[in-house]
Each structure stands twice: as C-alpha cells, then as structure tokens.
C-alpha cells in the first residue's frame, strides 16, 4: 500500500485517499459559450499519459481536502503533491510541461 503525502496532513496510507481524475482541467467559466465538441472535450477527454500525470486526490478519510499530485503511471511513484490551486510544479522530464 502506497504512502501518499497530503499537503495538509503529511504522509498517510493510501487507503485514506480517493482518486479524483486528471488535475488542472478547470470548469469553463461560461459553459454556454462552448460548442458541443468543446464541451464534450472538457467532459470526457483526458490525456491518459504513460509517465508523469498530474491528478487530483482527496484525503477523504482525513482532512477531506482535495489536492493535486504528479504520479508516474509507469512506476506508480508519486513524484510530488501540492495544494489545489497551485500550478503544476516543474519536474525534470515532465513532457506535459
């Protein structure tokens, strides 16, 4: 079982957390201005990378806070966790940056 570092509470076992999908996909400020295609893209399309992936996690059985993490989908290693609202940190070799 992984240990995940909540930016608010520190290191805790994986089973206190719930995965929340890809991070940094902001809800459009005015969805009514989007075409159906743009809206579908926001709703459904995700990058699904092999390698570093920025994703949302929630410390659901702890402080209850959502936060973001960069995880390597190949090794299942968490590279870094950071608070919601912060920008994706600079990581060497991060293709998405």
């Amino acid at each position: 079982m992984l240990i995940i570092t909540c930016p608010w509470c520190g290191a805790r076992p994986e089973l206190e957390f719930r995965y929340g999908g890809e991070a940094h996909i902001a809800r459009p400020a005015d969805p009514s201005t989007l075409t159906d295609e743009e809206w579908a893209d926001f709703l459904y399309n995700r990058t699904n990378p092999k390698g570093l992936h920025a994703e949302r996690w929630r410390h659901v059985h702890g402080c209850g806070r959502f936060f973001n993490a960069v995880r390597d989908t190949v090794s299942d290693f968490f590279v870094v966790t950071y608070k919601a609202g912060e920008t994706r940190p600079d990581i060497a070799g991060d293709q998405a940056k």
Partner: protein
Amino acid sequence: MTNRFRTPSGGRIDRSAPVSFRFDGKTYSGYKGDTLASALIANGVHLLGRSFKYHRPRGILSAGSDEPNALVAVARDAARVAPNLRATQVELYEGLSAESQNRWPSLAFDAGAINDLAAPFLPAGFYYKTFMWPAGAWKRFYEPKIRAMAGLGKAPTLPDPDRYTQNYAFCDVLVVGAGPAGLAAALAAAESGARVILCDEQAELGGSLLAEVGATIEGKPAQAWLADTLASLSKHENVTLLPRTTAFGYFPHNMIALAERVSEHLAAPDHDLPRERLWQVRATEVVIASGAHERPLVFPDNDRPGVMLADSGRTYVSRYGAKPGDRAVIFTACDSGYRTALELKAAGVTIAAIADLRPQLHGELPSRALAAGIDVRPGTVVTGTSGRLRVSSADLAKVSGGAVGRSETIACDTVLMSGGYTPSLHLFSQSRGKLVWDAASGSYLPGTSVERERSAGACRGVYGLNAVLEDGYAAGEAAAKAARDTASPQRGATPVNGASSRSFKAEAPDLGNDGFIGATPHNRNPAFAKAFVDWQNDVTSKDIKLATREGMRSIEHMKRYTTTGMATDQGKTSNMNALGIVSEALGTPVPQIGLTTFRPPFTPTTFGIFAGEARGDLFDPVRKTPIHDWAAEHGAAFEDVGLWKRAWYFPKAGEDLHAAVARECKAVRASVGMFDASTLGKIEIVGPDAAEFMNRMYTNAWAKLEPGRLRYGVMLREDGFVMDDGVVGRMAPDRFHVTTTTGGAPRVLAHMEDYLQTEWPDLDVWLTSTTEQWAVIAVQGPNARAVLEPLVEGIDLGKEAFPHMSVREGRICGVPTRLFSVSFTGELGFEVNVPAEYGRFIWEAIHASGERFGITPYGTETMHVLRAEKGYIIVGQETDGTATPDDVNLGWAVGKAKKDFVGKRSLARASMSAPDRKQLVGLLTTNPATVLEEGAQIVADPTAPVPVPMLGHVTSAYHSAVLGRSIALAVIKGGRARIGQKLSVPMPGSVIEVEVVEPMFYDPKGERLNA
C-alpha cells in the same frame, strides 16, 4: 516396520516425545519435531499423491515450501479441513490426520492413471486444443470432468469455525528469512538499536543451519552457534522473532504481508488463539534473506516416488533423522550431491553410485567421496528409473560430447538429484526490483531496487557459509544505518552495503556454485520418455519443446501455453529448467527469453487470514436509526439499504408482507401513519454564499426561496443526468437544510465538496454532514396535524400559517425541532426532525398521541407503494444514470432562467431533448390482478421477429390496496406520446398486456396534500 528408516540418533527431533498420526487411514508414529513428510519417510512411505494431469504416482520431492508434489489435506474435523498443504511444511502433532489427494479410488490404484497412457493426447496447450469444440461442451463435460480428475483438493463445505486476526506493525528493519544471512542481518541491526522483525516460514528459526552437521561458526558447531544467536536475539527488546511466519507479499512503500501460523501445529489449540495472524508490516528498510531453491535435474522418469532433491534428502537425514532409503543413487551437476552422499553414508545409507553430469571432478567434496570409497562416475547421466509405486532402480549411462552411451541398471530405493541452486527472487521481484542475469553462476540475481530493500546471502547468489554470514551482517548494518539516516517514507533507494564489521570465522565444506539448467541428455525414445520440468502441473521437457515448435517464443507465452510454473508452487523448482530448455530449443541465450513475473502470495494463503474478523456480523458496519430498537421490539421486518437496517414492514400476527403493506397503506390514506425517515442524508449548508452555491449545484432557483420555505431540489452530474434529489429547507438567508437520498448522502457531499474546493474556492460556504444528528419521523395522513398539534410548542400548525412545503423551528415535547410540512405520500404530511438522541422519545410520544386515530407505523415497502401511487420517483429506481430531469417529468424543477448550474450545458445538447428518449409513464395491466416484474422489458409487438425492439422497462410495480389493482411505473421511448396505447410485456410463457397512462394513479389534482 515402524520408523525402520529412522537413524539411531541425531537430528532435531525429540526422540523422547513420540507422536502418533494417521495418513490415509493408517496409523504411524513419528516424533515431535517431525514434519508429516519426514515422519512418513522414516516409516518408509514415499507414495503421497497422484499427479495433476497424468495421475502418475508421486512422492516427496523437497523438504520445504518449494514442494510441488506432496500435497495433502489435513482434517481436524468436518469443518476444519485444509486441502493442498505441503506435507514438507505440516508439523506433526499427536492425532494428526492427513489424506492424500487426487486419487480415486485409492492411492495405490488410481483409475485416472489411464491419462498417463493417453498422454499423447494431452500435449502442451491441450486446454486450448481439445476443449474448443463442440461449443457448450466445456460447461457440460470438460470442466466438471477436469475438476473431478484434477488434483486440486477439496474445500470443506462447512463454515470455517477458526478465528483469524490481523496486526499492523512497524519496524526499522524487517529481515525475511532466518537462515545464516538473515540471522546475521538481524544481529547487526539489533545491535545497532534498530527495531527489528525477523520472520521465517519454518517452525524453527535457523534455515539451512538446522541441517548443518559439519560446519563451525565462531569456533562453535553451527547448531550451537544458532542456539546462542537465537538466545541473544531474543534478549533484545527491540527484536521480534516470528517463526512459522511466511512473508508472502511485498507491496509498495515497504508494506510486507506476513502470514503467521499461530496454532495450526498444536494437537489441541487453545480456543483463545487464532489459527493464523496476518501481519501488515511497514518497514523502513527490508533485508531479504530468502535463500535459494535446489534445482531438480530433468531426466526421464524423474518423478517416481523415491526420487527427490539431494539436499532435501540430506536434510531429512541430518535434521530429522529420517533416511530416504537404504540404497541411494545420486545424480548431480554440482558439489552439493557429494555432501549429501557423505552425510547419508555416515547415517548408514548405501551409496550405490554418484552420477556426475560434469566430465571432470575437482574440489574438496568429490575427493572426500572418492576417499570414502563411493562409486563416483563423472560424465554420467541418469536415463530413466524403474519401479511401480517407488523407485527400484536407476539407469546410468556415460555422456560425452552430447552422445549418451548404453545404460547400466543399478538397483536403488531412492534417487537424489541436484542441478545446483536457484536464488529465491520472489519477494525481490514482487517489490518490482529489476533482475539481472549472472552468466557466471547461470542465474538471475537481484539488480536495481525499487523499494528500500536489499538482498543478502544465497538469494543474491552469495554462497559459502562464511560469505553468507558476512553478507548478511553487512546488509543488516547497512539497513539499520539507512533506516536512521533516511527519513520515511521514501522509495527507490539503491542499497549499498559496506564490508561486514564482524568476522564469523565459519568453516564449512565448499559447495562451489556449479549447476545445470535445462534437460539432461538421454538415450530413450523421445516419443515415450517423460522428463518432468514442472511436477505440480505435469509439464515435461517434451511439452516445452513442442511449444517452441508451435511458435511460442516469449517465456510468458510458453508459461501460459504449457502451464509450466503456473501451479501453486509458482515454479520454485521448475522455472529455470524451463528457461534452459526453451533456450536450447530456440538457440537463444537465457537472458533474451525473459523471466515470468513473480506474484504474491509466495505460498498459498488462506482466505481466512484476509477476512480476519470481518465476517458474519462484523463483515460490514451496521447502521441503525435511533428508532431501530422500537421497530425491532414491535416486530418489524428489516431490509438492508446500503449499510442501513430499515424497517421494511410491521406485520401483525398472521400477516405476510402483502397483508401488512395493504393494511399500512390503507391506514395512511384513511387516517394517519408514521415512518422512520432518519436514514435520509442531510447536509447543512451555511455561509454568506450558501444560496449562490445551491444555485450552482441544483437545477432549481434558490435565490427567491424565502426562509421558512421548502423546495424539492434536483441535482445533476455535469453530464446532465439526474444524480440525486431531496427536499431542501431554507432555515435562514445563509443556511440551508438539505436532504438527500438514503444511499446518495456521501456521494452528494463529495460532489459538493469537489466543486466547492476545486472550482469555486472563492465561495464562502461550509458543508456539514448532519445525517446522523437528526432523527426524522414522517407523520402522514389526513389526521397528521391532529396527531402533532398537542405536542408542538411555538409553531402554528394551521393551514394558512404553515402551508405545504414549509419549515418551522420550535419545540415538540420540549425538544427542539425543525418541523417540515412535506409529503412523500400525497397525503397531508409532516416530517419531524429532532436531535437523534431524542428520536425514540419523540417517536413514542407521537405514537401515543396518534393512538386515538389508530396511528400505524409503516415501513419502506408501504412508503414505496404510496409514492408510486402518486408517481413520485426514486432516484436509482426510476433513474439509472441516463435520465434527464425531463425524462422523469422533473423538467419543471429546472431553473431555465439561471445562467449556469452543474449539468446545464449538457442538457442543451440536442440529443438530451430528443422526442424518442425514454420517458417516465405509468402502466396499467389489462388484468388488474397482475403485478409486473420490475426490470421487465416492454415491446410494441411481441410477435415481431427476434430481436424484438425493446421500448423500455418497468421501473416500479406494486399491488395498490387503496386502488384495488396493480400499478407500475416505467420508462418508455417517447413514452409521453404513447399515453393511451396498449403495449406488451413478454414474460417466460406469457405476454402481459399493459396500457400506457399518466404516472399518477391517486388524487391527480393533489387536493389531499392541503387537507
């Protein structure tokens, strides 16, 4: 003939403690300290089972957890039957009763052995070839036959009466394996002050030292050193010693799962003791000291009972005082076979010959064998064995340059073989460490680490007692230092060991590191010779060669096609030989063929240890409302709704569900009923931006809802489909009392938190779950007001002062309440919210006040019928995650003037308002007595050719006692336009005719709400 094969002295068995046991109904005797295997060997019993596929007689191959053959069922009673135990690991206790498996009708005569003669028809990949045709035959014929014939043991049918517990533990250094490397590592770590856990799968700690009779360590005989070391370790308060404990799984961040067998080895286990204990250890550093497995040699007839691994044969003699036979032939590719020969000879076993695959002899042990007068034959192979249920002779032939000469038959009652050692990489591989091929030793070794672990001793290819001890000590020192220096939690450290700071001055015979992988050459007809690679799955060298001819290249394909290495022993004895055979057949070097992945568990693990205490009443938490006990005392039948126990109906004497629900429904419509609605989810939404937040989360408009008013709210997912619903009360401009469905409460709160925290953190709102803080009592029916009026203070219940869909705060029987005028029945109704601890008190007060009206407690079934009569939907019953508000007639609840809310943009997609969407309607069966089946499909023309187009399905169906007929709700394509049409519900054997109607069966104008 009892213990005829027992040595006169020696070994670690307790000869003062004889033990009587039974095997296949026959009584034998052994000693405390024996395993079932060693005791049977001492009694001359080698035939222990039949093989999986060919039903060939099989004996004991090894002395440890790598045993592929000797699987037995051990039964304490009818419920306590453990199948598939390795006899080599079953500790003997007084009265132990074991049975062989996979034989019918008896072990000596097995009808399935016909498979052996039919072997040409059971080649590699026979699963894929034979059972493809005819379709359907798999389920009817092949599978049951294979299950009956295959040696998979039989699980008991009674519930397991034993207890299993689970432990979490933390340590600085976990050492897996208590052989010389593990002991030295634990010593080093313990002396540095680290918290150490040392575990080993065997009954005694010591590993190979337990069978070590010729070596000295620090000037002491090895076993004396072992005793002193264990005594010293057990004095350390920071050390936990766990014998009988298998590290079976290596999980991320150094979480290691250990299975401790607590009482399985006892004749009469204390009932207070669990059978097994699961340890979930989080270790800062791990030292893997899992040793190596001796490799069999792959030669024809190498599976006959009496053929075993050489070092296992030696272990039986030197550790257990049990001789594998009177006259042994040894077939070896390394010096280990000579050590076996010398120790067996010293114990009185005649060594008929040593066949050494290697052409040249050198080294200390072969010289000693020659000096002892043993017939040593270099450049010699075993080409076959004879004997019906036990080996009686072996055929030896000279081999040179690949050419095998004529065989000479040598009488013997045991053949002991050694192909060298395979490092045990299971845990390292499970930790996702990368393996590297070591050409010098012809084995895979641990390479780059992924977790904070290091291997020590034979499991990383270090051999020789002194080298192993020092490697272990150095690993223990380095692990303890790393645990001190590097903060947890981290992964991916690369272990660097220093030199051992302690010298063990161990003296032991040099075993070298020679070995052989693959199949040894022979002079037999390849069409008929069976040389086994995988004993447990009955895979021969011929099967593997055939698979390469049929195009298998990757070892992963090979494994699945031939099933080699896929049995419960995970190929501990077979993987490397299979690789060697593939390598030779393809002419490809071993490292290019790859290695299959090792997966947990290392050895089979009981389900009980995973379940732990979580079974029966403790399987899941049970949620009970404050009124639960009252309902139970009044005879309620309960149903499970999620984790909740909900009162389903309240039967009176002689009533079934149908009768009770009919009575309860009529009582609500005619007078008054009461219902425990405490399970409704409740969320308190508070803050200056509470109304704005509600506007964004629900379809409805909230800005104009005045404090003191209720509104039915609909919540969508962002994709526009109905997610939840519930009545919401505005308590104050900045405070909402939100209710959700019973099952949806956590999901709705998480959904709200997600938007509040991540999309709109600027909103000043607080969300608090209050589900368990409020007890909720629904009082419904024409007399509801009259029941409550005498109890309530500070609230005017008058029709004008307190209209339908209002909320007031006041007191009931002196208890603060939020009183809702709301109805889920279509009758005049109230929902009394009171602090949960007063729930039962207020329930009883209302019940007493209602007695004069014959107030009737009702359960969830009546609640369902009453709301269906009114066409009120239940989210999750009428909706399935693909329903828009309009689909279920809730279009009116969508605030179309609102600029945005979650799901609004999706509703604007053209397909979301297509006229042929499935829409909520009512159904009336032509025969009023027929109650439709929920989930039944609806069609226009049941005689249409198959596949008949489906129009929709029945979502709710009940008998309505008030209406005196059945009613149903359904979702049907373009349903609203079909009102008045007749449709059909085909059922097995009949077709039910229905009429599509408005989904409203009772009081369509809603007059009763405002009575």
